[in-house]
């Protein structure tokens, strides 16, 4: 029997998905694809990434071999120009004719180009295909000012890309009175505008363009209100128009405002002809998103193989995917009184706007808008889509992540099995849980491989992760964090074993407790444990090659391969003479100098070869290593305190110096920072540190487990009104407890957050000595304090170690000639990465 033939017009995202789905369902069909574009289907959703990536390979949706292996014939760069529906035959531009049993239109859409005088000028671009982006990129190189017409999702994405391309000024013009008019309301738009201007984007609203200016080349835009702007480049993103021209020509029914009319099975007015994706008009709607397009592909493919499925409409919720700008809109975003109750949260200071629309009886969430903070988007969307009952105080949903994460597992539990988690690939909660339970997928990547969830727009990945963890916990699976393929142990187990066996080098540890040859995960971890336990010079015993890069050269590596030099300046106190030495050294070795956020001075841009010489001079002047490169004590900041300050209760500088000198060089699971403030005004910011000390009338208050960084957290009070000796004893215990039990690369704040019993338990261990370890830990600490030596002093004095600080072993005098600097405000800076970033 002759095999039936399916011809597909268009190899965009949806046409491609259709091929894949059809192949999965049935094998004895002949599939022939015609594509207008010169390359096979790529990920249009991530088109903008094309500016950043090195090759288009990363964007292709299927490997080239897929088409070959599956026997799907694809004609690139050859659009269909005619169809004879009586003979069931298509004809391509290059003159190929093929007959079909089923014909599928997946012709997508084209950007709408408004009929404005001057639109044909050089410098006007669209934003839809790889070719468009190539043209824009080439033109942007000589342009200064860019403008995007249209402030919708796509327009904003294009505009951000202009900024990233390095255009000096970028503006968005929008006809409506707000940005993203179809997704968000006026207040949300105001906040969004503010965020975008921080990114360097100007927004011009309520602007209707009357004319494009310039002779052949675009030079500006005139508006109907009489104003105008200058611009060299214009990207049009004013909406889309379905590509229905061919369908219209061959007499298929199309909608009044465009789009190929289809029924719920995706059949056009000719039952053997289907239309899917952005060219299809279904339920009076054009769906301009990829997820509904994939659903249409599924339905059409099912129908062809005789399964009955129908298109039931699709959720149009979206999240803007610009770095640094969280905007999401879901469900019915605009419904308001009297049809719903609106709950609003607006924090202009933090730049957060949230709106939730709740049913009048307060039982269900109908939709909403999030700007500035959209971490809860996935969960809220699920609540809408699955009509989950609302708790008594829906306003709590507006609060930040903390309250959400507590309710996260309750939320996941409430989701029905059929809840669609990944709408691009149509993966449900049940399928993901099943992948974890029966498919033994233990992380989001494994689930992605097994179910494809998260491989489309990627928006659901955080939720997939939560689901994996939730399911594993439900299964009673102990999430035991072993180190890597070389050590089947947790960090704490390894710590205890190294201590018991008194192992002192990485190789000995690997031979005794591990297998294989180590890697970049276990080497630094073991090195850190060895340092925490024995405090021997970290570059000795062949351990240098097991140190993280910065530790190995006792300096932080920078762009270009040079290093920074950070001498310790305890408590931030420094004499004029020492300042002069730093200045002289910096001048001699031509280093960029900067006051750091940690109250000391960083000297950047040192060649590897120069490091020992620089340190030799600094050490001679009484400096020592600041361990800015190590997972070790960094700085103990101080405020000026009672020696000068009229409010100072105690001498905070002296105490800070004492603390810094006690714990200098102490290696830990992560870096540790401290500060001492002379009174409750807290000028040293002690409450943002791993341990912070604040003077009181009667002594010191000791705070622990604070953190700056990306998730700032205030430190918690551990003990109050204690004297200096007690304070130091508590810190000894606190630090040893942390060093012994924290996971690798875990700051004290995160360590505490994971600790059962929290601060009360910690207080019990440290202050009340609940584990009876207090004395032992104080002794351990004293051992480390007594064995301290400045690493740099050892390094410059030991010829074996010192000789490693060269770039070429066979030309030790020569510096790396590829290192480049640019001059910058009277100093220098590292030249940019050697590759273009787009």
């Amino acid at each position, binding site marked *: 029997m002759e095999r039936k033939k399916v011809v597909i017009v268009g190899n965009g995202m949806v046409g491609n998905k259709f091929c894949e789905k059809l192949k999965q369902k049935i094998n004895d069909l002949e599939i022939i694809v015609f594509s207008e574009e010169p390359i096979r289907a790529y990920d249009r959703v991530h088109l903008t990434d094309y500016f950043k990536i090195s090759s288009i*390979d*990363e964007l292709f949706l299927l490997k080239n071999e897929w088409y070959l292996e599956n026997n799907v014939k694809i004609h690139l760069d050859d659009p269909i120009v005619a169809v004879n529906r009586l003979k069931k035959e298509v004809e391509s531009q290059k003159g190929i004719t093929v007959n079909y049993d089923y014909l599928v239109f997946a012709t997508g859409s084209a950007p709408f180009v408004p009929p404005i005088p001057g639109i044909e000028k050089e410098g006007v671009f669209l934003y839809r295909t790889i070719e468009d982006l190539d043209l824009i990129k080439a033109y942007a190189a000589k342009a200064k000012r860019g403008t995007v017409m249209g402030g919708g999702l796509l327009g904003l994405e294009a505009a951000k890309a202009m900024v990233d391309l390095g255009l000096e000024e970028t503006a968005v013009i929008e006809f409506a009175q707000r940005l993203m008019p179809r997704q968000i309301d006026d207040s949300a738009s105001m906040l969004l505008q503010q965020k975008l201007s921080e990114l360097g984007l100007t927004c011009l609203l309520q602007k209707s363009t009357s004319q494009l200016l310039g002779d052949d080349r675009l030079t500006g835009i005139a508006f109907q209100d009489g104003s105008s702007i200058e611009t060299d480049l214009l990207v049009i993103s004013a909406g889309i128009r379905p590509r229905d021209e061919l369908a219209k020509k061959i007499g298929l029914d199309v909608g009044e405002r465009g789009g190929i009319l289809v029924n719920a099975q995706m059949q056009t007015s000719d039952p053997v002809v289907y239309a899917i994706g952005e060219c299809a008009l279904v339920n009076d709607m054009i769906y301009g998103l990829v997820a509904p397009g994939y659903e249409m592909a599924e339905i059409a493919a099912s129908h062809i193989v005789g399964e009955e499925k129908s298109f039931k409409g699709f959720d149009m919720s979206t999240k803007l995917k610009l770095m640094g700008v969280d905007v999401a809109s879901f469900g019915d975003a605009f419904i308001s009184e009297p049809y719903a109750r609106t709950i609003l949260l607006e924090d202009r200071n933090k730049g957060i706007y949230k709106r939730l629309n709740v049913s009048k009886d307060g039982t269900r969430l109908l939709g909403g808008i999030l700007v500035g903070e959209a971490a809860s988007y996935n969960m809220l969307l699920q609540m809408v889509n699955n009509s989950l009952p609302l708790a008594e105080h829906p306003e709590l949903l507006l609060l930040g992540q903390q309250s959400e994460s507590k309710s996260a597992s309750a939320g996941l539990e409430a989701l029905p099995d059929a809840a669609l988690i990944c709408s691009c690939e149509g993966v449900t909660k049940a399928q993901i849980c099943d992948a974890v339970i029966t498919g033994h997928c233990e992380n989001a990547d494994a689930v992605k491989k097994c179910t494809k969830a998260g491989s489309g727009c990627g928006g659901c990945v955080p939720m997939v992760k939560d689901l994996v963890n939730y399911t594993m916990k439900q299964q009673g699976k102990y999430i035991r964090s072993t180190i890597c*393929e*070389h050590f089947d142990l947790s960090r704490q187990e390894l710590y205890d074993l190294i201590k018991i066996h008194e192992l002192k080098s990485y*190789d000995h540890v690997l031979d005794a407790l591990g297998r*294989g*040859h*180590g*890697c*970049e995960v276990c*080497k*630094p971890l073991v090195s850190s444990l060895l340092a925490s336990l024995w405090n021997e010079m970290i570059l000795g015993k*062949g351990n*240098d*090659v*097991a140190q*993280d*890069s910065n530790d*190995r*050269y006792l300096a932080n*590596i920078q*762009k*270009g*391969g040079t290093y920074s030099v950070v001498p310790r300046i305890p408590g931030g106190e420094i004499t004029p003479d020492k300042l002069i030495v730093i200045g002289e050294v910096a001048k001699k070795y031509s280093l960029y100098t900067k006051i750091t956020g940690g109250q000391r001075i960083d000297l950047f841009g040192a060649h590897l070869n120069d490091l020992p010489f620089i340190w030799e001079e600094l050490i001679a002047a009484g400096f020592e290593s600041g361990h800015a490169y190590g997972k070790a004590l960094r700085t103990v900041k101080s405020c000026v305190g009672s020696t000068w300050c009229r409010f100072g209760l105690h001498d905070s500088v002296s105490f800070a110096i004492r603390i810094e000198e006690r714990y200098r060089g102490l290696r830990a699971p992560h870096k540790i920072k401290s500060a001492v403030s002379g009174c409750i005004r807290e000028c040293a910011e002690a409450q943002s540190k791993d341990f912070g000390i604040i003077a009181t009338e009667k002594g010191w208050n000791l705070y622990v487990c604070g953190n700056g960084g990306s998730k700032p957290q205030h430190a918690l009070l551990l003990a109050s009104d204690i004297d200096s000796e007690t304070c130091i004893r508590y810190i000894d215990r606190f630090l040893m407890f942390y060093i012994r039990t924290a996971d690798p690369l875990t700051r004290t704040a995160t360590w505490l957050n994971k600790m059962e019993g929290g601060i009360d338990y910690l207080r019990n261990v440290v202050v009340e000595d609940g584990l009876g370890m207090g004395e032992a830990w104080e002794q351990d600490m004293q051992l480390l304090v007594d064995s301290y030596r400045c690493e740099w002093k050892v390094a410059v004095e030991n010829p074996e170690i010192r000789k*490693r600080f060269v*770039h*070429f*072993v*066979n*030309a030790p005098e*020569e510096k*790396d000639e*590829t*290192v480049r600097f640019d001059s910058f405000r009277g100093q220098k800076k590292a030249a940019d*990465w*050697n*590759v273009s970033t787009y």
Partner: protein
Amino acid sequence: MNTQIDMKWLKACRIEDAIENGGVCLKLNNEQVALFYFARRNEWYATQNECPHKRQMILSRGMLGSLGETPKVACPFHKKTFALDTGECLSGDECAIKTYPVKVENGSVFIGMTA
């Protein structure tokens, strides 16, 4: 194998100049070459010194390790890893690095390069 024809063994350094279980950088033929002595496996490898990710002259300062049986080096900058035997990138899609043959004779290390 045409490439074999014009390959020359260039003297790189003495064995003791190399670092056990680590890398050193050499200037050979006006190129920067990273030489690794994987002492735990008693194997020698040479590759280009430039990391293809951000084109940094740095791989010789990278950390050695193994992935299953494959010997690898991790770049100090962003920890992309590359197989030392084939040069293949083991993390993500960076392009592969060049590798060169190494031999050790009479206490000296030689690297095979085409002129």
